């Protein structure tokens, strides 16, 4: 196989792209408008036209520099960036991955129609050009797909972080008394993050008592129970005391069955009881100011 031969074919495709840019653009836009994946609710007709024309214009200017149409080459950087940007904005706007991918895949039909017109008489060249066309569109498709995946991953990661932050508020109940109300199922990773932020808050606020309230926790496993215990030990090393409150009967049973020793840890049935104990330890009492109130 001679590379010179392939070179000629690819040059042909690039020549056609450059020479027939306007026609290809119109064909591509009408191709997209006819697809089921066309979503006028998410993207207006005007935006669709603008995006298609802008991308095609980047493609033709890159094709002038690199007729081999190899997207890995530096000449295609602007094309890759623009396509990533378009794919990203579509993924964020709510297009499904298939809908986003069909944006570039629909270019295949427009290109192939054009190739057929140009190579009407020459079946051999047509076949070769079709092949180049397929390879080229596939490369565009890969850029789109990986961008969509990356965008989704970023989104998921961001949401996870936000949820973690939301679900781990360390609040100051009183001077020197912190509270960590835990809600929802605890997994090992979340427990670790929560506990680290509790210890950090203890230092920042100079609190000597931390109440860990697990009223909102349906179950604990061995690992989570051990994390809880380790946190209590770490807090003690730092000079603060932990009170665990709101242990459900089910969790108490689990803890005993798991053989986790809790006897060095102060436990209270409710957050209110824990707060009362904390006040007592701080040498404070609550008094009603006005008996009529």
């Amino acid at each position, binding site marked *: 196989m001679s590379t010179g031969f392939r070179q000629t074919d690819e040059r042909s495709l690039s020549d056609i792209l450059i020479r027939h840019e306007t026609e290809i653009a119109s064909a591509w836009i009408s191709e997209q408008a006819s697809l089921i994946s066309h979503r006028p609710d998410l993207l207006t007709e005007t935006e669709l036209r603008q995006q298609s024309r802008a991308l095609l214009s980047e493609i033709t200017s890159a094709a002038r520099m690199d007729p081999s149409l190899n997207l890995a080459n530096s000449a295609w950087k602007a094309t890759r960036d623009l396509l990533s940007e378009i794919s990203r904005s579509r993924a964020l706007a709510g297009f499904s991955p298939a809908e986003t991918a069909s944006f570039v895949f629909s270019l295949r039909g427009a290109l192939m129609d054009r190739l057929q017109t140009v190579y009407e008489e020459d079946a051999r060249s047509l076949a070769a050009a079709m092949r180049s066309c397929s390879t080229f569109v596939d490369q565009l498709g890969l850029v789109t797909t990986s961008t969509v995946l990356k965008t989704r991953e970023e989104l998921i990661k961001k949401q996870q972080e936000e949820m973690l932050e939301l679900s781990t508020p360390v609040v100051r109940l009183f001077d020197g008394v912190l509270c960590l109300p835990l809600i929802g199922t605890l997994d090992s990773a979340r427990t670790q993050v929560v*506990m*680290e932020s509790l*210890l*950090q808050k*203890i*230092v920042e606020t*100079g*609190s*000597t008592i931390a109440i860990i309230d697990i009223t909102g926790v349906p179950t604990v496993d061995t690992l989570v129970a051990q994390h809880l215990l*380790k946190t209590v*030990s*770490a*807090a*003690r*090393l*730092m*000079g*603060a005391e932990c009170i665990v409150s709101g242990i459900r009967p089910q969790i108490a049973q689990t803890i005993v069955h798991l053989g986790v020793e809790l006897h060095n840890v102060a436990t209270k049935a409710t957050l209110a009881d824990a707060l009362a104990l904390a006040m007592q330890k701080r040498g404070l009492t609550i008094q009603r100011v006005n008996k009529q109130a």
Partner: protein
Amino acid sequence: MERIPILKQGDLLLVSVQVDMHDQLALNLQDDLTQRIVRDNARGVLIDISALDMVDSFIGRVLDNIATMSRILDAETVVVGIQPAVAITLVELGITLPNIRTALNIESGIALLRRLLPTPDGDADDQS
């Protein structure tokens, strides 16, 4: 020989560890403190390790020894300022320092020592 300075305030001895201690330096501190407790007739020892970014089993054992030895010499030891990351690592390592009293910072450490130490001679003793 390299030594960590020990300050005397009333009946308390104060140590602030500011350097990454090699093993002999930690052992020197243990020797110096036990001698100073007797010589200065100290009742309490406060060791601030807030500047340490790591405590391994050796330093942990030295701290534990200091607390146990000073108790024999009738003095209370309080270790203050253990950083969260250091505390988590110690627990993971299996070191819980059961013989040692701890406090968040120097201020609460001194308050704890004052609570622990009986003052039969009254308040006047605090002025020395």
